[in-house]
């Protein structure tokens, strides 16, 4: 009898089972110190398999990373909370808009708001994110005009992309947000290329790559890590590990790798794993990583440990493949609730003000939504001219496209 059998990674629970995160190690905040900016990959093992946390379960900020962050003003925290709430308001309303048939597609980042919101607030002018479709939070925290954001989602004349791209596939150069591709992974190595260009120009800008846990399996993840390891450009490579890739458990992308951060260590790139539902941990580690990159210490990988609380997209129903209420069972809670608790503990916030802010932001988004919808929705389309199909394929329109545009009647 052969002793050989294949192995297939399984999630801790399927729909007929109770959520089970007992295998997840929850070391206390403060267990890991702040490494020097020039730490090498070799010394990074504890950070790559541990989890950097700042907020404890009671909402108290503690440990060396809290110290590293220094005293945060109440305004700074409110800004973070408002960013996350605004993000959530947009997600909720646009999810509904899609359900009402007003747009063809939507995709929420619920539960992951802290990551993009916190990271973006640490970036500088001219830095460039290479996001996936689930980093709309970067745009929110970059104060991207909601008109443009929603315009893209409705493919109407407020859409900066003239309706060309699927809703959620934003592009906003002036807000440090690279054009999203539907092809997973491709942006990751492009981020490294952009960062190399920054280094060659000596302009002190950095790039940030973003990728989901599932897409770390892509070839471009490898290409990116390899190139970053070889040329040492100023790039922060983010992995958002939200436990799922559509219906596929993160274990299928991880295999026997200890963590995604640990995989990066193999490439000789320092890597660090962070509680992505902890806004303060996000701020602290982002600050560290961005400073490191800008300071010429080379690339760094951050694995943001989080949970995709919502469905993959409006095309998806996770009840078919994962345990009911898994999100509620997530051992690291909800980023909004956790920051809120911290602020209340500090005396900077109250339940009432929270309710009030949420209502205010929902109203703000609703107001913008109404205005934007007047420019056309999926059920009441006022798309930009079909001639937009032909412009921008090339800088100058070649003859054959001119003929085709004519054939189309424009």
């Amino acid at each position, binding site marked *: 009898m052969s002793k050989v059998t294949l192995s*297939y990674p399984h999630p801790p629970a399927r729909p007929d089972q109770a959520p089970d995160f007992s295998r997840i190690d929850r070391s206390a905040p403060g267990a890991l110190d702040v490494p020097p900016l020039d730490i090498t990959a070799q010394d990074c093992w504890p950070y790559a398999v541990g989890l950097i946390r700042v907020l404890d379960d009671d909402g108290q900020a503690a440990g060396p990373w809290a110290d590293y962050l220094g005293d945060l003003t109440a305004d700074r925290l409110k800004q973070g909370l408002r960013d996350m709430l605004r993000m959530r308001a947009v997600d909720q309303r646009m999810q509904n808009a899609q359900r009402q048939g007003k747009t063809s*597609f939507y995709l929420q980042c619920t539960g992951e708001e802290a990551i993009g919101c916190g990271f973006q607030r640490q970036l500088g002018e001219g830095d460039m994110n290479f996001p996936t479709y689930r980093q709309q939070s970067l745009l929110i925290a970059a104060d991207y005009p909601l008109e443009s954001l929603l315009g893209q989602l409705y493919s109407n004349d407020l859409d900066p992309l003239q309706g060309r791209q699927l809703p959620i596939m934003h592009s906003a150069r002036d807000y440090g947000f690279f054009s999203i591709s539907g092809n997973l992974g491709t942006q990751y190595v492009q981020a490294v290329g952009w960062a190399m260009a920054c280094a060659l120009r000596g302009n002190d800008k950095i790039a940030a790559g973003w990728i989901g846990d599932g897409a770390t399996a892509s070839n471009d993840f490898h290409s990116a890590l390899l190139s970053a390891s070889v040329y040492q450009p100023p790039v922060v490579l983010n992995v958002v590990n939200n436990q799922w890739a559509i219906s596929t458990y993160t274990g299928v992308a991880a295999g026997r790798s200890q963590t995604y951060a640990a995989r990066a260590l193999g490439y000789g790139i320092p890597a660090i794993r962070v509680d992505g539902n902890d806004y303060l941990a996000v701020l602290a580690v982002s600050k560290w990583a961005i400073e490191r990159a800008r300071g010429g210490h080379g690339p760094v990988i951050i694995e943001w440990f989080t949970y995709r609380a919502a469905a993959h997209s409006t095309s998806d129903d996770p009840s078919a493949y994962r345990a009911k209420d898994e999100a509620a069972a997530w051992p690291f809670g909800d980023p909004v609730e956790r920051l809120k608790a911290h602020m209340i503990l500090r005396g900077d916030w109250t339940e009432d003000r929270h309710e009030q802010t949420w209502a205010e932001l929902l109203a703000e988004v609703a107001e913008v939504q109404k205005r934007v919808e007047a420019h056309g929705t999926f059920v009441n389309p006022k798309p930009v001219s079909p001639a937009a199909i032909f412009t921008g394929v090339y800088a100058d329109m070649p003859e054959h496209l001119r003929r085709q545009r004519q054939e189309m009647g424009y």
Partner: protein
Amino acid sequence: MIEALRSAMDVSLERDPSVIVFGEDVGYFGGVFRCTAGLQAKYGEARVFDTPINESAIVGLAVGMAAEGMKPCVEVQFADYVFPAYDQITQEAARLRHRSNQQFTCPLVVRMPTGGGIFGGQTHSQSPEALFTHVAGLKVVIPSTPYDAKGLLVAAIEDPDPVIFLEPKRIYNGPFYGDHAGTSVNWSSHPAGEVPEEHYTVPLGKAAVTRSGSDVTVLTYGTMVYVAEAAVKAAGLDAEIIDLRTLLPLDLETIRASVEKTGRCVVVHEATRTSGFGAELIAEVQEACFWHLKAPVLRVAGWDAPYPHAQEWDYFPSAERIARALSKVMED
């Protein structure tokens, strides 16, 4: 068509223990289009399983397995995502038999939803068939009915060589006549929507004449078979519509017979026009039927631009555009 495809894999898994099915989300969940739903529960994880999101790994593993003697039938979630696997498909799978002088062969199937019409934008709408028809050693198949889908997929799985199996996702649930604003029709109302439960095959390499006529020949495949039908009706012509079903190898005999009869030809596909498969069809038709042709062969195809989201119906080759081409080709 989804049930038909599932049934094709079901009967193949049942009959041949070397058949194996894998891809992104195809295992426990049964595929984002549900084509493999229930198969893992029925055949176990060793026969039907989930993979990491790496199309070149999916195909690369399949090449190794196929060389060993298994018969992998793998799914690429959208044809738009096949490109990371393009190297393994074109340089490896396609040539293994030839380069090893038949020591190793590569009986595998790469299934992928293709085409537009679902508001998927540029990365859920592409039609890359011509990028495979240029590659010697591959077969390229695209069904247009549930009956054909099952029979062709079973034949593809049983074929001794690698087959690219394109599934026109716009007609997964029913035929589509190009009227995007109208109500959608279900396969149950279509004669070819009926699919026998048992094993059968539809041979690769054979086209189907889906409408016979004498005025003009329409060469097409996939979703456009129905849009062409609508266009022919609109144009009020007695057109012969040929559903190619297999693009490589091409059933030139059926094409030739038709064009020699009609003397006119229009080629229709969703893919971008330049260097699309329509070009190959025209090159063959004009060479085989030059003296019968009464007018230039015209192409109706996707514009040479990325597939747009909002302007989808200006991009998608409409029945009106096809009808215009039909009329034009009749003018001469």
